[in-house]
């Protein structure tokens, strides 16, 4: 009887270890957020993780997949982030210049106070849709490691390009324009 119980205990222990290994392997295989930008920038066009978030600029919520059929520039920002301030006027310009062509700029404010975010939007006169993710759960799926980060998503919901840091230099802006052309095509 004791031998049988010992075998059962050993079986349970081995089973638990195996389960932990399976969980580890699963999480490694499914954690694509970290390299979403890398994959996009090498031309793989991974799917943009969908989200539904409350709007900051008006009542209601915005679902990313509801913009299917349009190209999207998704900008992850926060009011306390310095480079976000430098980048904000340029993103407004991009929105104004391309909105009639089927491009939507979406500002995703994360890990921030709503009131601060609204003040920021007012100060930089941002008129594109703004959504709020206080806990920052959504941005994990995009593998965001810092602020700001920008993703260009095509009409089919695939990520065409990613930008870590502000899109502020000539080189980065040229690359953004090129990615937008690609996403609108």
């Amino acid at each position, binding site marked *: 009887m004791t031998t049988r119980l010992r075998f059962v205990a050993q079986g349970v222990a081995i089973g638990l270890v195996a389960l932990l290994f399976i969980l580890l392997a699963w999480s490694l295989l499914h954690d694509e957020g970290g390299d979403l930008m890398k994959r996009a920038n090498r031309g793989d066009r991974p799917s943009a993780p969908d989200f539904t978030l409350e709007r900051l600029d008006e009542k209601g919520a915005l679902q990313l997949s509801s913009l299917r059929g349009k190209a999207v520039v998704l900008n992850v920002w926060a009011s306390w982030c310095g480079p976000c301030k430098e980048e904000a006027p340029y993103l407004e310009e991009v929105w104004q210049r391309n909105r009639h062509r089927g491009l939507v700029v979406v500002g995703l404010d994360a*890990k921030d106070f*709503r009131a601060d975010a609204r003040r920021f939007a007012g100060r930089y006169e941002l008129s594109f849709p703004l959504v709020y993710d*206080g*806990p920052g759960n959504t941005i994990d799926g995009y593998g965001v490691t810092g602020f700001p980060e920008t993703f260009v998503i095509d009409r089919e919901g695939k990520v065409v390009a990613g930008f870590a840091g502000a899109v502020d230099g000539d080189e980065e802006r040229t690359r953004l324009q090129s990615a937008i052309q690609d996403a609108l095509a």
Partner: protein
Amino acid sequence: MIRLATLLALGGLAVASVGVAANPPRAADLEAELVCPVCETTLDQSNAPIAEKMKAFIRARIAAGDSEEQIKDALVAQFGTGVLAKPPGGGFGLLAWLLPLAAVLVGAVVVAFLIRSWSRRREPPPPADKLDPKLERLVDEELARFDG
């Protein structure tokens, strides 16, 4: 007399409890119980911009007369329950308290079972077989001859 003493004691308790409830929360205590959503350390350990904003928020709410619970609730409404260093005591948060206890209990049961199993395995060695009397006599004779 006893009634008067009881009334005075109850009155004293009521005053003391009101005094405790009226004590404003301390910013340092709250900063040790709330987590910076960017660096994921407690606010007192962080000087990230959002942590500084949260500290300023806490001080402003204390000055406005909010209780500890009100301040925590306001921050949870902005940043979610992840902002609490200690998980909430109810619902899903209860798992964070119960799972470690369950793990310790299961571990204790496994260790007890193993100890019991090992101690049973150590049975006393079987007694040595007795020498055949014929052989024993032969050995004795040989030894006597050797001594003689």
